[in-house]
């Protein structure tokens, strides 16, 4: 046992506490980095020396710089991320669809339909009046304009979704590539016996992004790499990463599949899933409803109108009020627009007879669509969109609440507390001071020894 040992222990202390201060400063500098997990310095005793049945401690060493992270919470966050973004994306898209309806206002289809049918009631008061005939035409054109506008708007949203889906799949591919690279790096660091703390944080952040796009299944491997499958399809591990693409099938439905077309993603949450659901199911269903309403107006008005007589000399009959209807486009007969007297308000040809006009006006109350009136069918449709939207809004809110709680938990466990780190700085600094002092003591001991001869 020599004085040298004293130097040894002190030197080791100096290095250890310096390293500990480094780790602490890394924590402090990352205090505002949301992806960072704090790293704890684990100090341990160096192997003791055994001499003459006595064990002499050999000082301190850094056992580990441990990343504090709860992987169970991570998995939960990813799962709720998918759900939250699924609901959120649906809500934001549905609110676009909702806005296109401009309900409840004077400009909505509900009001315009009522105006159209009421214009026939008004015409009935004075069937030969050109002003009232023009009023019927105006309201018909307003109605068909709005219907087309809504229908076209929905198609536009659908087209946008298609583009967006392609971009989302691109992002997924890029994230998968990054995860693949990080997996390899983590494997290499780990194999070298080191802890890849910051790489794990980086990868966690990317998986986080990925989880908001689609529902993932993440498996941790022994070597700290992860294997991820998306929508039941293998996506990435240490050795490979998959590339996905979007394809529209013959029925006009979008599918996300592997590059070789081998497997299709079965998505149930995440932004991508929301896009596909709205593109494949929601908008076609809504457009179908609009078509049903448009078709009912087209059929019913035409069938009554064709039985009526025009206000021309000689009177004509068998004229259609609307010339065509398809895909939301309701076209008012061009000839009638040119000559409003071709509106058939009369049942017997008398210019004062209004029976046909009254019959058309009565269509408003008629049970034309599955035993319901046109306006009821429409307000049920609005109600459906509103309910869907409200559900998704509420889901988004509740998932956000859960995510917020989970984030809090992560922040609580893995977040950096500046106070705590400052205490550590003081602690390590004091230890460093003490170790330095010890060197001085050892030096003085040497000096005493040397001077005594």
């Amino acid at each position, binding site marked *: 046992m020599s004085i040298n040992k004293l130097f040894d222990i002190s030197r080791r202390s100096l290095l250890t506490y310096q390293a500990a201060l480094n780790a602490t400063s890394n924590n402090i500098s990352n205090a505002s980095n949301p992806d960072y997990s704090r790293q704890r310095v684990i100090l341990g005793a160096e192997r003791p020396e055994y001499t003459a049945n006595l064990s002499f401690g050999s000082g301190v060493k850094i056992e580990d710089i441990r990343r504090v992270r709860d992987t169970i919470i991570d998995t939960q966050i990813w799962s709720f991320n998918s759900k939250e973004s699924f609901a959120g994306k649906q809500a934001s898209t549905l609110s676009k669809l909702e806005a296109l309806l401009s309900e409840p206002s004077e400009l909505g289809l509900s009001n315009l339909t009522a105006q159209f049918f009421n214009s026939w009631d008004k015409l009935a008061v004075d069937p030969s009046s050109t002003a009232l005939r023009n009023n019927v035409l105006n309201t018909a054109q307003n109605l068909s304009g709005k219907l087309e506008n809504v229908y076209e708007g929905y198609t536009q949203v659908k087209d946008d979704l298609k583009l967006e889906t392609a971009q989302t799949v691109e992002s997924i591919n890029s994230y998968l590539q990054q995860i693949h690279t990080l997996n390899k790096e983590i494997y290499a660091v780990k194999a070298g016996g080191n802890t890849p703390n910051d790489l794990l944080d980086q990868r966690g952040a990317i998986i986080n992004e990925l989880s908001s796009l689609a529902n993932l299944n993440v498996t941790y491997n022994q070597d700290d790499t992860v294997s991820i499958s998306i929508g039941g399809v293998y996506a990435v591990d240490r050795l490979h990463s998959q590339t996905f693409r979007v394809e529209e099938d013959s029925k006009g439905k979008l599918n996300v599949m592997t590059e070789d077309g081998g497997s299709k993603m079965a998505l149930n949450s995440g932004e991508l899933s929301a896009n596909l659901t709205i593109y494949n199911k929601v908008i076609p269903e809504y457009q179908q409803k609009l078509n049903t309403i448009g078709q009912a107006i087209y059929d019913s008005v035409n069938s009554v109108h064709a039985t009526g007589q025009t206000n021309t000399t000689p009177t004509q009959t068998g004229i259609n009020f609307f010339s065509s209807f398809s895909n939301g486009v309701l076209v008012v007969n061009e000839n009638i627009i040119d000559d409003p007297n071709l509106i058939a308000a009369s049942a017997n040809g*008398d210019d004062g*007879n209004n029976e046909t006009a009254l019959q058309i006006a009565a269509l408003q109350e008629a049970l034309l669509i599955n035993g319901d009136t046109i306006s009821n069918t429409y307000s049920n449709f609005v109600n459906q969109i509103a309910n869907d939207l409200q559900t998704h809004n509420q889901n988004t809110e509740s998932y956000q609440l859960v995510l917020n709680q989970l984030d809090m938990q992560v922040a609580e466990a893995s977040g950096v507390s*500046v106070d705590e780190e400052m205490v550590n700085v003081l602690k390590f600094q004091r230890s460093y001071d003490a170790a330095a002092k010890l060197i001085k003591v050892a030096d003085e001991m040497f000096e005493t020894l040397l001077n005594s001869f």
Partner: protein
Amino acid sequence: MRVTDRLLQNSYLYNLNTNKTAMTKTQEQLTTQSKINRPSDSPLGTNRLLRLNSEMQDIATYLDNVTNSFANVDATINAMDGIQTQLQSVLVDLTSINNATIEGDLNSFADQLQVSLDSIMEFANTKFNGKYLFGGTDHSQKPYGNNGTPPPEYVQNTTDTSGEQKVKISSNISQKTNITGDELFGTIDGTDMFNKIDTIITNLRAGVKPTATEVKEIEDFSAKVLNKLSAAGNIKNRLTDTEELLKTQQLNVEELISKEKDVDMARAIVDYENQQFNLDLTYKVSSMILPKSLLDYL
């Protein structure tokens, strides 16, 4: 519990966001004065609102119809009043003819009767707002005319004067708003008012006085016109009643709409002030707590 800086920041941001979301909502309600600005604000409320709005439109249309019909009915009543006055004067003349004291120039009586008959014809062909009041639903030509070749001299020009002008005044009631020529004058075949008076005139000019039967027939015509006058009065009353009813309905529906979507302003303002106070408090507290750390005391 381990409190970290991120934890504080997160919860601060979350609370701030919650506050501001609530404020945005209240602010929108205050500025639009409407609780329902998009269907998803209240799906059920929107459904009701759409229904009430279209009810409102219907009522407005019916009210329009009633108002427009009033003028028509008034014109009809005036025309019938005119006919009735002329028939009364015809009856006075007929009584005078049979009165021995003024028995004399039958021709001048014939002239007077002719004036009355022309006047009645004029009323029968009254055109109002582009429509012949007693032409039924055919307004293409004068319903009655004189073809100058007896008998009968007076004819009906339009084939059918029985068309009823029906106007919708509620979702399932269509009100007839005209008195048809057919109802008032019957078939023009010689037994009608015009030709009967014409026959009396012709007879007078030939020196023949009207018979008691003929006088009775004119009295019957007069009674019929009176009868139709009261029918038209009924139509008018019906329209007035309906107008009242529709106006009450309009008020009711307006009230329902208001209940569904109007914002309780006092409450919204108090809410808003409360939220603003909360926001201020959040700012203040966070500005006091967030920047603090052990560093400040080292």
